[in-house]
């Protein structure tokens, strides 16, 4: 009996040791730094400089070192967060949707609020005296877009025109002029009948003779997400830090070094991007 007991005891001890072994490594791992990925919308140096205050601030708050990684391309950035190779990602709305369509949803931390709005709205413009009043008037007209990857200067307005049945087999092909400014100038010069631009550019050129003939649906702003499988406590911790950034001087500084016009970060969920998701999915069907 005694012998049986001791075997049982040995087994228990051995099992506990085996169970403890992986656990005892965990704290060391917890000290590891987190990586936040940024898509390369500016040069690497510029982006590192802009996001360093945020990485430091959030890192201090959650007690982890946060490193910045600038993706070599938009696609690579999407692939990195999609395959959980980085911990946090800052993403544009279209990239986010592309990512979720390929890799599924990730925990959403927060989205930007720019001058009080957590969304943005592009516009479709024409010349004031061109007689074009609605997007229905754009059949067989020359359309200028900015960049094929740009939400406001192509994806959303293109979808609107497509749904309005503006493109016919006789339509002249629309063109990409690279930037919002070129689109505004192309419309004003008369080379194009209409174009899609962001409101800032519209405000800049409105008094030169541009009118809005349509505005896009409200598209949710840029956002931060985390990789799958980050511990829920950590995700909550980061989210709470991000959402309360605007309440401290240092936090506000971190926000504004990313972009002057960011007023704060606000809560967001996948549902906020559902309209863009539909637009991108529907647009693909037409291709």
């Amino acid at each position, binding site marked *: 009996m005694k012998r049986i007991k001791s075997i049982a005891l040995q087994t228990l001890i051995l099992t506990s040791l085996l169970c403890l072994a992986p656990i005892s490594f965990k704290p060391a791992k917890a000290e590891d730094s987190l990586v936040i990925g940024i898509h390369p919308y500016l040069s690497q140096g510029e982006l590192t400089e802009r996001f360093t205050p945020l990485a430091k601030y959030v890192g201090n708050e959650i007690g982890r070192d946060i490193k910045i990684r600038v993706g070599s391309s938009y696609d690579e950035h999407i692939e990195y967060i999609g395959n959980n190779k980085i911990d946090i990602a800052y993403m544009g709305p279209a990239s986010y949707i592309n990512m979720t369509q390929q890799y599924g949803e990730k925990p959403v931390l927060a989205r930007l609020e720019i001058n009080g709005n957590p969304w943005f709205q592009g516009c479709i413009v024409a010349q004031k005296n061109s007689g074009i009043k609605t997007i229905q008037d754009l059949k067989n007209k020359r359309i*200028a877009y900015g960049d094929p990857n740009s939400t406001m200067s192509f994806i959303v307005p293109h979808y609107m025109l497509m749904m309005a049945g503006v493109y016919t087999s006789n339509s002249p092909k629309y063109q990409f*002029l690279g*930037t919002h400014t*070129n689109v505004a*100038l192309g419309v*004003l*010069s008369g*080379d194009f009948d209409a174009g899609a631009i962001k409101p800032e550019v519209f405000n800049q050129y409105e008094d*030169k*003779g541009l009118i809005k003939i349509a505005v896009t649906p409200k598209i949710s702003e840029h956002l931060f997400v985390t990789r799958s499988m980050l511990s829920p406590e950590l995700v909550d911790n980061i989210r709470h830090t991000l959402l309360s950034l605007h309440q401290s001087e240092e936090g506000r500084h971190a926000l504004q070094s990313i972009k002057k016009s960011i007023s704060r970060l606000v809560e967001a969920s996948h549902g906020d991007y559902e309209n863009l998701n539909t637009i991108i999915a529907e647009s693909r069907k037409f291709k």
Partner: protein
Amino acid sequence: MLARRPSTIWIGFIIFMIALLAAGYGIHNTHLQNEIDNFEEELTAEAELVSFIIHDQLQKHDYKSAEDFILNFGEKTNDIVEILLVSPNGFKLAHYLSKQTSEHVISRTINIRYSYDSSATLELSKKIDHIYRHDQLFITQLFIGYITIGVVLYYLAYSIALFGKQKHALVNENRQRIETERQLEETLNSLKERERNLNVTLNSIGDAVITTDQNGHIARMNPAAEYLTGWKVKQAMSEPLDRIFNIINEITLEPEDSPAREVLASGKLIKRDNDVILISKTGKKYNVAVSAAPIVETSEEILGVALVFHDITEQKRYQDKIRSLSQAVEQSPVSVMITDMEGRIEYVNSTFEKVSGYSSYEVIGKNPKILKSGQTSMKVYEDLWRTIKSGKAWKGEILNRKKNGELYWESANIAPVLNPSGQILHYLAVREDITHRRQQEEQILHQAHFDSLTDLPNRFLSLDRLSQLVRDGQRNNELVAVLFLDLDDFKKINDTLGHDIGDKLLIEAASRLQKEVRDGDTVGRLGGDEFIVLLGGLSHASDARPVVENLLNRFRDSFIIDNREMILTISVGISIYPNDGNDPSELLRNADSAMYHSKEQGRNTYSYFTDSMNHDVARRLSIEEQMHGALSRGEFYINYQPKVSVANRDIVGVEALIRWNNPALGDISPNEFIPIAEQTGLIIPIGQYILTEAITMAASWQTLYNDKFSISINLSPRQFRDPKLVSFIGETLNKSGIKGELLELEITEGVLMSAHSYIHDSLSAINKLGVTIAMDDFGTGFSSLSYLRQYPFDALKIDQSFVGDITNDKADRELVNAAIVMAHSLGLTVVAEGVETEEQLTLLAKMGCDVAQGFLFSQAVDAETIVALLTDKNKLASR
């Protein structure tokens, strides 16, 4: 006399002065006009350069870069007052406006056409105040000169007149004094001779000259020096040179020592011609080139310093301008090359070096021919030289060769540079590397015309080739054959073995087809598993026969894909130009109809098109057209044929049979519309309609008349592809409340032959619902026993074609008997279809057949009639 003389002199003097002024005015005007003309040429060149550079940016609609260039050019180039780029609707695409104001401005306007319907106007304005300032100075100098000449002449004339009148008195009174004065004057003159000679020399030198004594104090200055320093000789005399010749370094802007001190110390000549700015007394700044030399007489003692300098401000300005212009050209993102009239390269920019791989020193002095790839046609070069030699710009695309031998496409804009009289001085070539764009275009062109999987011509190109063949046939009075090929049962391969294997099979099939036709014949892929073969230049329609027979033979050999052996056959339809149509789409349509005919003939064969096929196709199309919406319009309805127990002639159930009455086509047989419904997929909603309708009806009959009353419904193979089939049946049963065992689903062997796992799964699931399954049309297919064993069948329905002959055909009788025995041994109920006579029924009863249906009892009838039959069995036809 005396009184008249001065007035005569005055009048003469005034006339003389007016003549002088008039001449002066003329000289001045010519001078001014020349200056302006020169400046205008310069302006034209600049405007052309700007338009040349922004042309490409506008062509790409990169308005912002064009604007940036204009603003930068305006900023960096001297004297530009305004540059305006305006689109035809008046919109200012770019506007550079200098901060400096100016009174005199000249402008140049150039129209830039950057696409067939887009243009913009460039207006470049420069100030020419400095020309007028120089002009004012010129007038002032002229005026002072005239006054001086006038005054001198007046006194000369007056003296002569006075001398005449008072000659004697003067001689007498002053002879002695004059003599003394003459001697004195001679002495003075001889003394001043050297001084005057020196001054005249100095004054006539265009350069400014200052001399100092050995202490570095001013000794002499000529007028040019007075003008530049702003000091008059009298004021400057004996002043230290540093004060008068006040200079700073152009780059550091720090004051500099005058070179005089160094010369006095060293006795050596010093020259500075690049970086010295002289600040005049009034604060004006001049870039000057200065040289300072020691003044040494016979003794080697240094007596002073001679400083000679001149204004190089203008020259510097030009240098700066040329530098900024050449920087703009040098940094331009496009290749720029300038050659002389003989085509020898004089200049290339860094983009050229980068693109071509040649350094500028390797190409300067050489002919641009070194870039020739030998692949651009001579015509292009001839056109190029003809255009530019006629003084016009040439634009086109050329394939060139890099130093490393790589070929590249360039979009070139080559223009002659003309002097004002229209002579060609240089050629200017602005070129852009468009290799990438050309490659993309070629790829897009290929993609537009060729199928990406098989690389065969696609539908578009195939039809284009067919049009060409038809035109040739028309011209040469020849026939054209269109072979429409469809791979038999390809869909099954895709569905069962996957698209990868399907794709590999298509590639292999395409290559077999290509090997079997002549070199000039076209094999194209129309899409999916459809191919086309075009045979031109035929004399008889039958000429296509050997080709198509060859093709069919070629497909006899099995295909081996991924170690799997497969047999694939083709069905071919042939249409002939001009017999079966005159245009490609008609020929294609008719070949398609003929192909359908081949399919109906049992596949693996070919058919020539005939007119009757057209009718079949038209009928098919109208059925297909009418079938859409027929369900919602309530055109379908169900008839029921009673199934009767052979033993006691009780109605044990009914078979539900779909019927369609369409307002346009009338009654359409299920044999005709069911295959079409299967192909279009409409069988799914139609099948659901039958299930719902028949089961609901059966439920009511069960409650009212007979709770063992069964309902039989046919399921088509296509319905099994509907993943919701089983759940739909389950739900319908639940809703109606009838027991599964009273629903019998009839399927044919065809359903089982595809051997898809989903069929097996569906049948098992249906069986689990308790629903019974009957093998329909037994005897017409393989009549395979193994199917009956393999699947959970409950009943076997013997096809009417056997039942019809059992009374007079022994073979059929034995076959039916055997089927009944076999079915019973497997525990299946046997139903005989198409029973028409009492003799047949008697025979079937002897054989032990369980249930019968047919005209002997009733044809398929509507629900009301069934109710009547159920209430009174005597109404069955046989009674």
